[in-house]
């Protein structure tokens, strides 16, 4: 049996300013970020988790936020060293850091690269000043453009651009122009996703006017064609990559792999040797997290995933993948027998939402647009 891959997620919870659409665990930085104190908490948090993952190597690391690029290069370097001391991290392991265009300086990014970060994910969102403002971003179109140059100059040959569409008052042409500009920057990966109004965000309380379904549909059709023509292969609902440049870290989520989460509000999912799958969550608020994390007590909750929820959680992720999944993947990741889902999959095949090519179950072109309906049948 192939072992279940294990990734590491590190959460840096601070931002210069909270964006009105963002529902991630981010907090406005007030003055200096307490880097040293936070890093200590991260390391103690990690150490308390080590017994859970004894002997397993780390397949990928993702440093997300918040805005991790608010961390100084030195602090980032120390943090990565501390991680290497405690974990088995092979050379060439994908180590991604999220960065926001408003925080780009050549020197610091070169230093990040030196520290061992080998992939960036840049939160561009749009190249249009009007839309950036509507999204509450701190950067403008110029900074957005500049950030991609800096990334390249700093030695990042593997980076992702986050672009959103369906922005308030956005026209189809504007959405396509944003995407074209992203493509022109020649990233290896583009995450192109529709603006979604999430609960617990400012937008949820006072929703902006966003384009109607027909416009969104047209944007999506044209955008997907544009990306495909430019050599970006769509491998997930919102993820497009040049050949061989899929995000290994995210792919591991979608293939229902394991991941350890450290940092404020981080989530983890670990398969235990006895066959149990556990989820854990860390304290969300940075102060609380640092207070508890320093004593290795950063977990706010831990729970065993109920057997009856496994199929749903697997599908929630795997049904998002263009390439779908094999029986083996399902069985090794959930430790359930495939018969648990076979009947439902067959119904979905009848409904032409899923197809089976004798190796993989994957969403059909139609199923691809109705992933929620696919997933819903496993609740």
């Amino acid at each position, binding site marked *: 049996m192939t072992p279940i891959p294990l990734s590491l997620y590190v959460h840096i919870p601070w931002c210069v300013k909270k964006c009105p659409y963002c529902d991630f665990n981010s907090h406005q930085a007030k003055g200096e970020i307490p880097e040293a104190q936070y890093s200590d908490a991260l390391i103690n948090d990690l150490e308390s988790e080590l017994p859970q993952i004894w002997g397993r190597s780390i397949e990928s690391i993702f440093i997300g936020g918040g805005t991790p690029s608010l961390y100084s290069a030195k602090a980032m370097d120390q943090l990565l060293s501390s991680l290497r001391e405690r974990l088995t991290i092979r050379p060439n392991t994908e180590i991604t850091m999220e960065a926001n265009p408003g925080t780009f300086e050549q020197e610091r990014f070169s230093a990040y690269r030196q520290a061992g970060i080998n992939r960036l994910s840049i939160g561009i969102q749009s190249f249009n000043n009007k839309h950036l403002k509507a999204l509450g971003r701190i950067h403008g179109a110029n900074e957005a453009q500049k950030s991609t140059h800096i990334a390249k100059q700093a030695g990042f040959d593997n980076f992702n651009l986050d672009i959103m569409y369906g922005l308030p008052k956005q026209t189809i042409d504007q959405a396509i122009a944003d995407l074209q500009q992203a493509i022109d920057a020649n990233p290896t990966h583009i995450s192109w996703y529709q603006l979604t109004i999430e609960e617990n965000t400012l937008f949820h309380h006072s929703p902006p006017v966003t384009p109607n*379904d027909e416009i969104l549909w047209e944007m999506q059709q044209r955008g997907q064609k544009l990306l495909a023509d430019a050599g970006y292969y769509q491998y997930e609902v919102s993820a497009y990559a040049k050949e061989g440049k899929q995000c290994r870290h995210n792919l591991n989520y979608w293939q229902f792999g394991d991941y350890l*989460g450290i940092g404020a509000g981080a989530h983890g999912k670990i398969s235990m040797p006895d066959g149990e799958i556990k989820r854990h969550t860390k304290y969300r608020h940075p102060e609380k997290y640092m207070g508890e994390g320093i004593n290795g007590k950063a977990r706010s909750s831990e729970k065993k995933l109920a057997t009856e929820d496994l199929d749903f*959680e697997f599908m929630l*992720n795997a049904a998002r993948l263009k390439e779908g999944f094999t029986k083996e993947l399902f069985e090794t990741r959930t430790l359930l027998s495939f018969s648990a889902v076979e009947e439902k999959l067959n119904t979905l095949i009848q409904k032409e939402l899923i197809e089976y090519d004798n190796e993989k179950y994957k969403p059909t072109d139609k199923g691809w647009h*109705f992933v*929620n309906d696919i997933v*819903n049948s496993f609740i």
Partner: protein
Amino acid sequence: MALANQNIRNFSIIAHIDHGKSTISDRFIQVCEGLTEREMDNQVLDSMDIERERGITIKAQSVSLDFKSKDGETYHLNFIDTPGHVDFSYEVSRSLSACEGALLVVDASQGVEAQSVANCYTAIDLDLEVVPVLNKIDLPAADVFRVSQEIEEIIGIDATDAIHVSGKTGIGIEDLLEQLVERIPPPQGDPEAPLKALIIDSWFDNYLGVVSLVRVIDGKIGKKSKVMPMSTKAEYQVDNVGIFTPKRVEKNELVAGEVGYVIAGIKDIEAAKVGDTFTTVKNPAEKPLDGFKEIQPRVFAGMFPVSADDYENLRDALDKLHLNDASLHYEPETSQALGFGFRLGFLGMLHMEIVQERLEREYDLDLITTAPSVVYEVETTKGETISIHNPAELPAVNYIEEIREPIIRGTIMVPQEYVGNVISLCIEKRGIQKEMKYLGNQVTLDYLLPLSEVVLDFFDRLKSVSRGYASFDYELDHFEPAPLVKVDILINGEPVDALSIIVHKDFSQSRGRVLVERMREVIQRQMFDVAIQAAIGGNIIARSNVKALRKNVTAKCYGGDVSRKRKLLEKQKAGKKRMKQVGNVEIPQEAFLAVLKRDEN
């Protein structure tokens, strides 16, 4: 001839909803110390949750209380609580006929309402002594003079010595009891004559079997005696008799004039029907008491479990409800669209709502209920007459000689300023005015109305056009031929039998259009276009279209908080709970009731 106990008083309270029947009865129990303070839960008599929530009594109940009068005598009062809604007029008449008198309780700030009038007439017909009572006199808006006049003018009973009370504060309650004892006559009846006991109500108790509430008119009914309901002549041995104080208290026998319960090893309430007469096997009465009727349901609707797996559960639930509700009729029905379910017959709309609510609440069933319809009589070209309980059963046009629809005679009472609105509504509903009386500020309107129009949305409309002031009561009058047609609804070209309606020809076009439009609003966008059409026979009279949903997919999902994603999806899924898959289209419950909630604009 022996005489029944002359210190007994059997009475009912006639009151409109919210006019204070329950508060007054609670006061009676308090004054007569039927329950200790600790046992007093407000409104003791309305024991079902739904009754309490809606403030309506569904089942008849009774309380026996001992009242020590100022004249030194102790009187034995039997208060028989009657169901308080137009759907249950037969039950009301049976409850009333168990009494010698009734208190007409009128809210002194509101005045007389149609339902009280109807019940009051029933009481007068049954020769009851009606004692008018003005309640809520503590309210600043109380207008004793006006309301007394209304009672005299509308009901025609002397209201000069109406008793003024406040159930809330307790003012006048003792005086009311004294007056009750004085003015309501004692029971007649002969304790030595052969047994005649009127069944006021029957219900099923899990431990005791069927419990019947009875009024002994003549004779006695005691433990171990053998009795039979006179309509069936089936013999039962009496296990137990007694009274409610309101706690159940066993006695050796119930004697002429008394009200109490009888338990006789009966397993099915059909065997102890409301209005039937118990007599003894050994020395039976010659004739049963007057007024017994087999009650027929008037409103029918299909009920289908959302999940086919629940069919058996629905059957069990109906069996159980039927244990306590003989007026509920049901038989299996198969719909092409909705699968296996039941056709249920109800006394009226309220009865239907109550049953639906109980099935969902107490038995946790997800049901699709079709729009209610009435019974049509169809005379076929072959000369047969058939009853149609379900629009889908209507024969093809070429087999129909004549369709007859049920017509009711409705009484509406409304303040003058709304008369115009009410008349317009009645005309719109194909009503024919029979009588109009101005009495004080109140106007009484008598209309013949097709029951199908009343079932539709008449109550709601009447309330809204009269700002809630109109009250309404009705009884079935006759069947009448009418030019009726069946309108079918087609979803993606397939007729959905459960959506068919029978309507007057003149309304068929407009109703078809409205219905299609309503369907378009309630049917959610699906993965494909949904075409909705209304048709009479082969003619399409209206059409509309629900455009396909483009996509349903969450943009972002990166490990993280699965529980929140799950909750969102669960919400989405819960929204589909009350949907029924017809062909490959998901149709929500509202669609089946869309015919009821027509938008008049």
